[in-house]
């Protein structure tokens, strides 16, 4: 039984969507709207916050409360929204430039505090809105408008940054697989704490095909490992490949070869606090490994906005000062009532308007 019977359409605004034709953002927006409809939470209780960049236009296309803010600051502004009103369901829409470059500091501190909101990181490895400069996730050596001879710096792996910031939830999805993106977003929405979902997103104009070697549906089963909680890490067209740990390192093996059976394959436990293995999964890259998709880490930890609320309630349960008048007259005060004393004049009558 659902309370609201929303469909994805209930979350679309009347504003004209102005992303480039073929942009990966359309698919991600559809997945988000479908996820929100399925959450069965009152429409009025959603707030969608973004920074600056192509993906950050997102709030204008939603029919919920929305705030399109300034470059890099969505995480900080959303932190204020959620701390002020923990009853809201807050989503942050952001990109690799917005969250990992100019907003890097807010991003890591949001994750560290574990504020209960959902952050969707659109990773297209390029600055799109400014027309094609390299971003903090651009691969070393890539030629862009600001790296005409190739970049000379290594990129962030977003999941590493999240786990390094004590992140409690990290998942990965890809724009051309809407069904899977929806499943991952639904898990993110369920999680109590900061959920970061990295969506590999294609920029058709400035970085077309950057994820194609991963996303190509023809090779999906071979090149993507769909992680499921409690399930063995198996992939491949024939479901015949899997991951094992050998000498502390991940290794791809073939089931049935060298005595390997399904029982030997690692079982995915995102709810276990196993940072080492989870980082290893995040780091997996073609061609040696498939790319890990799905919820990689989802652990429980105290949630900032709830802790803030709880602390106030705890202090208030034993409080002596219950209102401003109590506070004004608390502590070291003294009374003046001599014969020479004047009657008091209210400050705002004396100095200000009546």
């Amino acid at each position, binding site marked *: 039984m659902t309370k609201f019977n929303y469909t994805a359409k209930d979350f679309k605004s009347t504003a004209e969507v102005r992303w480039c034709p073929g942009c990966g953002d359309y698919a991600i927006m559809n997945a988000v709207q479908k996820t929100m409809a399925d959450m069965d939470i009152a429409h009025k209780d959603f707030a969608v916050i973004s920074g600056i960049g192509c993906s950050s236009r997102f709030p204008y296309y939603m029919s919920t409360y929305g705030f399109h803010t300034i470059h890099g600051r969505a995480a*900080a502004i959303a932190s204020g929204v959620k701390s002020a009103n923990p009853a809201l369901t807050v989503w942050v829409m952001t990109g690799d430039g917005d969250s990992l470059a100019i907003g890097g500091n807010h991003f890591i501190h949001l994750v560290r505090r574990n504020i209960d909101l959902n952050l969707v990181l659109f990773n297209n490895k390029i600055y799109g809105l400014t027309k094609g400069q390299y971003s903090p996730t651009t691969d070393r050596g890539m030629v862009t408008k600001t790296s005409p001879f190739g970049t000379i710096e290594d990129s962030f792996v977003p999941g590493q940054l999240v786990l390094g910031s004590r992140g409690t939830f990290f998942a990965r999805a890809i724009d051309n697989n809407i069904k899977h993106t929806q499943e991952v977003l639904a898990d993110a929405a369920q999680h109590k704490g900061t959920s970061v979902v990295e969506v590999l997103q294609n920029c058709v104009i400035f970085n077309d095909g950057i994820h194609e070697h991963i996303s190509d549906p023809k090779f999906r089963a071979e090149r993507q490992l769909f992680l499921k909680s409690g399930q063995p890490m198996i992939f491949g067209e024939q479901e015949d490949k899997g991951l094992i740990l050998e000498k502390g390192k991940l290794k791809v093996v073939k089931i049935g070869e060298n005595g390997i059976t399904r029982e030997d394959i690692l079982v995915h436990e995102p709810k276990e606090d196993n940072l080492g293995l989870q980082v290893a999964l995040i780091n997996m890259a073609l061609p040696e490994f498939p790319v890990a998709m799905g919820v990689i880490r989802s652990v429980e930890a105290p949630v900032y906005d709830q802790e803030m609320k709880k602390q106030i309630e705890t202090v208030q349960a034993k409080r002596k000062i219950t209102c401003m008048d109590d506070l004004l*007259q608390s502590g070291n005060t003294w009374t*003046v009532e001599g014969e020479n004393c004047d009657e008091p004049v209210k400050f705002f009558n004396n100095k200000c308007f009546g």
Partner: protein
Amino acid sequence: MKNTKVIELEEVAIRFSGDSGDGMQLTGTLFSDTSALFGNDISTFPDYPSEIRAPQGTVAGVSGFQVQFGKNKITTPGDLAHVLVAMNPAALKANAAFLNPGASIIFDVDSFSGKNLEKAQYKTDDPFTELKLNDYSLIPVPITSLTKESLKDLELDNKSILRCKNMFALGLICWMFDRPLDYIEGFIQKKFGKKSPLVAEANLAVLHSGYNYGMNLQHMTPQYIVHPAPIEKGIYRNINGNNATAWGFIAAAEKAGLELFIGSYPITPATEVLQALAERKDLGVKSFQAEDEIAGICTTIGAAFAGHLAVTSTSGPGFALKSEALGLSVMAELPIVVVNVQRGGPSTGLPTKTEQSDLLQTLYGRNGESPVVVLAASTPSDCFYYAFLAAKIALERMVPVVLLTDGFLGNGSEPWRVPSMSELPSITPRKAKNPETYLPYNRNPETLAREWAIPGMEGFEHRIGGLEKNNAGGVNQDPENHQRNSEMRAAKVEKVVEMFPELEVTGDSEGDLLVVGWGGTYGHMISSVQSMQDAGKKVSLAHFNYIKPLPKNTAEVFSKFKKIVVCELNLGQFASYLRDKLPGFNYHQVNKMKGLPFSVNELVENFEKIMEA
């Protein structure tokens, strides 16, 4: 008592001075509180180095605390001290220039030894002659050895014993000014009593030794009597500007029926505003210590979007970092208050010293046409009222407001008659009521203020942002629309003038010289103007609390005087603003950039020169 020198005074300024680890701030604060409880009016001025512990015994490491108290209204901590307590030769050197001629100097004779003289870089072994202080009333007291002597029966290590020295000085000063010790005793018991009874016992013993030393050696220490001041009836407390600011916001939230949120980042000298609010979980205050100055204001903007009274506190460098986000609150038209407790700049500048040099940054320091309302508090206690008013304006006019205070106000304290909440005006946030007609940027035709609908309110869902927008909050970059909106945002700020009282003049409404000041210099300004008025000069004071917009009658006030002089702790920022807003007057200037407040004497000298010219 025949040997006792008893001196009756109207007002006295005392300066406590020692190493930054000697506890001089605490000593000064305890004495100030005691004097306020006694019924004196007081004004205090902590003056400390930006290093937490600069090298011991050096002039750079000297920490001072000046308090003036008296039987009349006290408006400044005093230009020059009547009594100096110097715990070491460096303290004497650092403060010699701030003494009244003939002042009493109580010094720890034990510390005036070769090594300490060397550290303070004296050229001779006679510091008093070297500093030309021989005619002063020198009171050598073996503070260190007497402190040790009083504690010889307690099982305390040497370091802990030496930490009690400040209590000896405090006890002695209390005797000299006939102050009861009960408040200080209570404080010591409360602070150490439970945790370390031995430390409490030691501090109490030394405090009494100091007091008794004064009594027993009264032939050499003068005793002063300063009677209580006649003031308004009521309940009083001592408050500094930062606490008053914090409390003003709590009062405003309660009046407005909203929750209070502060997002902020520690920065001298504004940190105490955040601390004072973090303490008030009992009143439901949500405090968010952000990762940086930018996140401080951004969380604040987020909380305002979510329907809280949202404030942030900072000082000059932090205000610079907040400027882009402040522009967002101008564009989105969200009600936030930013407090800038100004300090010496530019860059890191003089973090612990006072200045008024952020005025132009506040008025103009953002990209685009980005008008905000600017208020300035003028005494430590009126920070409460201007913080309250800043919140009222923000909430009723849907506009960001910047409140300027400064290090002098923020750290300085004075007795304050506490109001009851019923004395404060109402605050009516502009909450949207009708979802049928609601558009986020529909405006009240009188005030141009928009309505506030917050997430969670059914039927009011809308989108806003930093892009130029239409009435529905959607993006609109049409030329005519941007022109209209830019003018609208400016006009909205100008219309706040209707909420302001007229500019008041202290003294006659016409005369030879109008002294103009703004913000935290009020105490020194009023003292200097009054002293000239007492001398029969036709001088009046117009002190500004409302900077943008300016009070309506400003030009009319200015037009009644032959000369106008604008005094400020910068190189002429308010003067240049006045030249822009009210051209046609000739503005003389008095400016000071020493990290210190004005002194009454220097102001009077400058005014006399301008009048004679």
